Structures are given as C-alpha cells and as structure tokens.
C-alpha cells in the first residue's frame, strides 16, 4: 500500500512536476467547460482550425524574440475574428472557408519554421511539453482560466439560448453573432493556454473529446460540464504520470487518456441502450 502511495507522490517532490500538475488541472478546467459549448454548437472543426492557425504567430514571435504567448494570442484572436467575419457573410460555406484559412496559416507556420535553424525548437509547440511549463506560463494559464470561467458564467444564459434557439434570441433583441464572437475569442484564449500542455496539433482533442464523452452520459448542461472537467483533469494527471514514469510524450499521453475515457463513455452508453427496454411512451394531459 505504501508502495502505491510512494509511487503516486514521488513525482511531486519536484517543483516542475507541481507546476505541471497545476497547469494540467487549470487547462483541463478551461478547455472542458468551453468544449461543451464547442461540441453542442457543432464548432469542433473551428476549434481544430483555431489551434493550428496559431502556429505562424508563435513562429514569428520566436524568430523575432517576442513572447511566444503574445504571438499565439495575437494570431488566435485574429483568426477568431476572421472566422466570425467570414461565416457571417455567407459567400462561401463556413467549413470551406475555415478549411482554406486553417491549412494556409498552418503551412505558413511550417514555412517560417523551416527558415529557422532547426525544427527541434518547435517540437514543444507542435506536440506540447507539460514538464517544461514555467512559472510565467503558469501565471498566464491561471489568468486565462479565471477569465474564461468568469465570462462563461456571466454570459451563460445568453450562450445557452443562442446555442439552441438563435432566432428567439434575435427576436428579443439579443444579437446571436455577438455571443458567437465571444465564444470564438474565449476559444482562442483557451487554445493558447493549452499549447504548452498538448501542443498546437492536439489541442482540439482537449476541447472536444472530454465534452463529447460527457455528452454521451447526460442530458443536463451543468452535469455535462462537470463530467467533461473531471475527464479532462483526470486525463491531464494520467498523462503526467505516464510522461514521468514511462518517459513518453506528455501531450500524446494526455490526449490518449481522453480518448480512453471517450471509449469508456461510448461503451457505457451502448450497454445502457442494449439493456433498456424499448420504451413507448405518450403523455398527453
């Protein structure tokens, strides 16, 4: 028994592991709660695109010696506003527009990277390195988490309404497009905060997979957010242990843990469906 406890606590003698744990918890909290809206509003593709388009911002910042987070934020916010604008004027289909912008921006990032001395410097941006989170990174992550959660709480009522019935929102004078911009901006911030943890390429998994798993388990929004947060945070911790003991990529381990939870949720849901009697119900008063 004490062996297990030792095994579990040993990693956290190190400061970098404590920082990493905090980062995992905070990023899980941010991504999972905003991820529920991303999944329910069918914005999964946008989430993915947003994380990829941040790459050129980061690379430019790196090559010029600016703060990487600032570069990421600028590129992320720019993309969020761009996507919002493109999808408002229905000249081309939204998913087509996103597909064009996201691959173009990502390619630009790769091109800029190839100009630099080596690709190696960028692997932690592409694939994340939670063990390398610095105190400054952690502060930024904490500020983003607090900000995102506060705004989600303040605008919950409106985000919820515009998600399932934007027309009613418009009729009562509430602009659905404003809420969409807000969500895209929060998404950009969430993506920036999670880059250190899972990297540009896999960030969308942290947004989408925990929320998708939770959506299989409940029909209540708050419960869905709660379950998604638990899954994301647990995955972060599992990934942390995996990278400490097995020396594997922390980002990949975290994402795979999320995927594992999703499969469990899927199985549970399928089983419940099998076992339940076919219900025929008609209630008329």
């Amino acid at each position, binding site marked *: 028994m004490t062996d297990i406890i030792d095994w579990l606590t040993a990693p956290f003698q190190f400061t970098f592991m404590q920082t990493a744990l905090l980062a995992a918890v905070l990023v899980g909290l941010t991504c999972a709660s905003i991820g529920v809206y991303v999944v*329910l509003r069918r914005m999964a593709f946008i989430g993915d695109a947003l994380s990829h388009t941040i790459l050129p911002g980061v690379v430019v910042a790196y090559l010029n010696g600016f703060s990487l987070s600032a570069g990421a934020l600028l590129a992320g916010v720019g993309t969020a506003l761009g996507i919002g604008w493109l999808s408002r*004027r*229905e000249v081309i289909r939204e998913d087509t527009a996103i597909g064009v912008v996201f691959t173009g921006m990502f390619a630009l990032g790769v091109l800029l990277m190839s100009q630099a001395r080596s690709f190696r410097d960028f692997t932690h941006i592409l694939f994340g390195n939670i063990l390398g989170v610095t105190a400054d990174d952690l502060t930024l992550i904490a500020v983003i988490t607090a900000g995102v959660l506060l705004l989600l709480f*303040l*605008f919950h*009522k*409106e985000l*919820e*309404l515009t*998600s*399932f*019935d934007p*027309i*009613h929102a*418009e*009729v*009562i*004078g*509430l*602009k659905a497009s404003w809420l969409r911009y807000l969500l895209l901006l929060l998404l950009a911030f969430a993506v920036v905060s999670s880059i250190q943890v899972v990297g540009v390429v896999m960030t969308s998994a942290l947004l989408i997979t925990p929320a998708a798993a939770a*959506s299989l388990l*409940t*029909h*209540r*929004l708050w419960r*869905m957010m709660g379950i998604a947060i638990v899954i994301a945070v647990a995955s972060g911790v599992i990934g942390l242990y995996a990278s400490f003991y097995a020396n594997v990529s922390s980002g990949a381990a975290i994402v795979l843990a999320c995927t594992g939870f999703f499969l469990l949720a899927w199985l549970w849901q399928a089983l419940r469906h099998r076992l339940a009697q076919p219900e025929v119900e*008609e*209630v008329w*008063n």
Partner: protein
Amino acid sequence: MFPYSRRVHQDAVPSAPALEVRDLTVAYPGTRRLALKGVNLCVPVGAQVALVGHNGAGKSTLLKAVAGLLPARSGSIVIYGNPPGACHHRVAYLPQRGEIDWRFPITLRKLVLTGRYVHLGWFKRPTRKDWLFADEVIDRLGLSALRERQISQLSGGQQQRALLARALAQEAELLLLDEPLNAVDAETRHLMIELLGLLRHEQKTVITATHDLGRLESDFDGALYLAEGREIAPPPGAFSGMKVGALA
C-alpha cells in the same frame, strides 16, 4: 438592468391595430430576388388571422419581417403603433420546428423560462418569480408532467405547446406562428383548434402561416392569401372572413 436592445419599452398606442403592414417589400440578405412584393396587412388587436399560400409564397418572410428578423427594403411595419423592435417582449415568433436544436441539453421547464429573458437582460439571473411564472404557464398548458423532460423527448405537438408556453411566459401580445401544422401528427387539427381557442381566451393577437386552411375557417377571423410574394384574391369558395389585406 442592462437590456439586450437599446429600445426596451414603448407603450402601445391606444386604438392602434396590433399590426399594420403597408406596401412591404423584403429581400433575403445577399440575394436580389424579392420574397415579398408590396404586401398590405392590417390586424386588429385580439384578431386571429391566417396567412395562406404554398411553400415559397412569402408567408414565413412576412412573419420574419414582422418579428424583426429580416429588414424591410421598402414599405412599413407598425406594431401596436410602434416600429418593429421598439418593444421586444410584445412580439413572439414561433419558428418552424426545424429551426431549433431540439437535441440541446435543456428541459422543457428551462425552455419556457427563456421566455423571461427579454425582461431580464444581460447579467441578471432568473429569480424565483420568473421560475414560478414559467411553472404557472406550463401548468396552464397542461405540460406539468413533462416539465423535467429534455426537449427532444417531447412529441411534435408537445414541442409546439412548449413554444407557445414560452411565448406566454414572455407576456407576448402578438404571436406569429410559422406553420404550426407542419410535421405534427394526426392530432394536428385538434391541437391547432385547441391552441387557437386558448390564445383567444388569453386575448392574444395571432397570425398563423399555413399552406392549408383545411376546415379551420371557423377558428380564424380573417385570411390573407399569398402567392409568389404578392397578395392574391381568395380562391373561389375559399374562406376570407374580415378584410385584412388590400384585396377583398
């Protein structure tokens, strides 16, 4: 309070009709084709009027323009003596069922509660009074047993009634029903008569878009027939009732 729109509350002009539409022309944003070409409609307070026509005749367009969802290209819309959007709570638009994401994780009770939002505005949370208001309306429409159901687990007719409950929770006076008869089951006619009777009892003004009047003549006070964005004369032998348009 931080209202959703700058223009919050305008009192109704006494003696003004519930709705007066003059020579209204509307095009969908980004297209040139006119969906409405000079339509007139006048609905007195408390009247129940049907908009009749085939798909694409302009019924939905007219309702959406009145609800403030589409801008008028020319002509005017006056609601209780005020321009559209002057008082957002007074108009309720019940969309075709396909325009709402019914799979969203929300209960019938919460759906009805969203009718209170126009009175709350930004940041204010629904109070106990708002919940009670919603529950009372749910009771009145006989939906109490379904209160905690997720909205996709309601039948088509129940979903219609839930939307109606929301309009009542909103304290709307002018109700715009877009094809409430569509995609509902065999109970449809019965349900529609029941709903119209209920709204008449509540002294609401109701405008209903439908492609088929069926045998509902006795339940409407008047009808406006539309084809290709224009008003047409009632087909021979069809119900017309009180005069609401420019033609007979």
